């Protein structure tokens, strides 16, 4: 069970003078259960790519297979696909609209045509998964804090019981604690359910801390696809395409240049602490 992208190309405004490629020859295999980070500067094609994964956009050429079936075949059930591949857009709280939190989360499963009891069970489970306490269930979603609203919006997607969860910059605009809470919750959720998570992010520090595979896009192409440590080792190339390595990696590089024997592939504070203590104490 997996998502396979086979030579996917997408051209915006094809057949006009404005035509430009948003995806060029993208080939990816996404097996079940991976935690994937997707990075790239604004306009590199990340959002276009994730919108192909649940069939919101159709490739100009090439194919996308979900669990073996071509999602753009005639008669393929896109509605079902969208419940299996859940996409949380940027600033998802702008899409909350119901009178209370619980009804808002029920909206997705209701549209799947499930019976009332199942809908409510799912909504309840989803709200618990994102850490929203019972006392908020019957409040207006608009009275919640920014971080809470965003978690309710994520619960709305989780209530569809997706196998793949795609989050487009889920922490933009949140304070540092709110950011850590959401990402910790997502990591925990993935461990518990085994779902695939794709995290689109502008924060190198966040992807270094959470994901086990990192895909980098530049000018409509996938330019790196490896573990975070292996990708960040190319920090000079990353800088040329408007990205960077996490700050920690730069510290390790500088220490190494000065003659301290530490691994320069380190990307997180915890790893760096251990390595430095070990190097200094010999």
């Amino acid at each position, binding site marked *: 069970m997996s998502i396979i992208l086979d030579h996917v190309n997408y051209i915006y405004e094809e057949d006009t003078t404005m035509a430009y490629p948003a995806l060029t020859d993208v080939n990816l295999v996404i097996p079940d259960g991976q935690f994937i980070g997707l990075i*790239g*500067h*604004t*306009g590199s094609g990340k959002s276009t790519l994730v919108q192909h994964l649940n069939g919101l956009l159709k490739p100009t050429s090439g194919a996308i297979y979900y669990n073996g079936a071509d999602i753009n075949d005639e008669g393929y059930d896109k509605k079902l696909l969208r419940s299996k591949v859940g996409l949380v857009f940027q600033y998802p709280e702008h899409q909350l609209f119901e009178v209370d939190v619980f009804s808002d989360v029920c909206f997705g499963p209701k549209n799947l045509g499930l019976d009332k009891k199942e809908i409510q069970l799912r909504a309840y489970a989803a709200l618990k998964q994102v850490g929203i306490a019972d006392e908020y269930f019957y409040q207006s979603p608009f009275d919640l*804090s*920014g*971080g809470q609203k965003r978690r309710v919006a994520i619960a709305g997607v989780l209530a569809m019981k997706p196998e793949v969860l795609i989050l487009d910059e889920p922490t*933009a*605009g*949140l*304070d*540092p*604690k*709110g*950011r850590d809470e959401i990402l910790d919750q997502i990591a925990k959720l993935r461990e518990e359910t085994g779902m695939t998570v794709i995290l689109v992010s*502008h924060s*190198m*520090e966040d992807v270094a801390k959470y994901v086990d595979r990192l895909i980098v896009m530049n000018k409509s192409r996938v330019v790196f696809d490896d573990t975070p440590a292996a990708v960040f080792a190319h920090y000079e190339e990353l800088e040329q395409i*408007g*990205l*960077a390595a*996490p*700050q*920690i990696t*730069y*510290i390790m590089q*500088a*220490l190494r240049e*000065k*003659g*301290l024997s530490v691994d320069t592939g380190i990307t997180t*504070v*915890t790893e*760096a*602490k251990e390595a*430095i*203590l070990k190097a*200094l104490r010999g």
Partner: protein
Amino acid sequence: MGIIKTKDLIFEYIRRDEEGNVEGITRAVDNVSLKIEQGDFVAVLGHNGSGKSTLAKHLNAILYPTEGTVWVDGKDTSDDDKLWEIRQTAGMVFQNPDNQIIGQVVEEDVGFGPENLGVPTKEIWERVEESLKAVGMYEFRKHSPNKLSGGQKQRVSIAGVIAMHPKCIVLDEPTAMLDPKGRKEVIRAVRALNDVERITVILITHYMEEIIYADKVFVMDNGTVAMEGTPREIFSQVEKLKELRLDVPQVTLLAHELKQGGLDLPDGILTKEELVDALMKLKK
């Protein structure tokens, strides 16, 4: 007196339900008295809902105090007759670059502000040129803003503000929606304005790395100023910042962790160079 001064500033708003009945009163800013000197680079931190944006909106008279007073360059912001002077003195840049640009061409967009001030045409063009040069966007003056990146658009927004010759510029999370390169471009432009043009900068942000060069940091919590000091003083207090839902730059966090791990390091290390130097000293 400083360029900006607040005394016992309180801002309250009334919450209403869907029928318009009053549900309660929220005090978003609670008794804030602060002073910002001309030419300073001031950063304001605080978690979501701490009152920092509400405070910022008082600094160019988008909001007026419920109680207390705000002076901008000596002018009381609740004085209606001074409104335009105040807005010209303290310009504001917001989070979303797409909501702030109206011109079809970059240079027209930047000229919009001075034109509204009644600046003579020739001088408008001079101001447009110097403003775009100050943020490093002069070569894009004939471009359509639609084709620019987020960081470039934000720099055009900043140019639009400085073309009005403000003494002070307030930036409310200007980098929240940008990629790493865009963030760097915007912060570099802001620092240059402060260093070279001596424009007072008030930067509100959630990115701790952006404020290590600030002269002064205010940390807001619950509508009040919970901490105040230099970046080094503020970032020395890792645990307190975490209580306030904030963070420290990764460099500072690593130094803090190493210190807890038994290394003899100074508090409040802010840059990579400082940390590397301190560690190499220990090696010897």
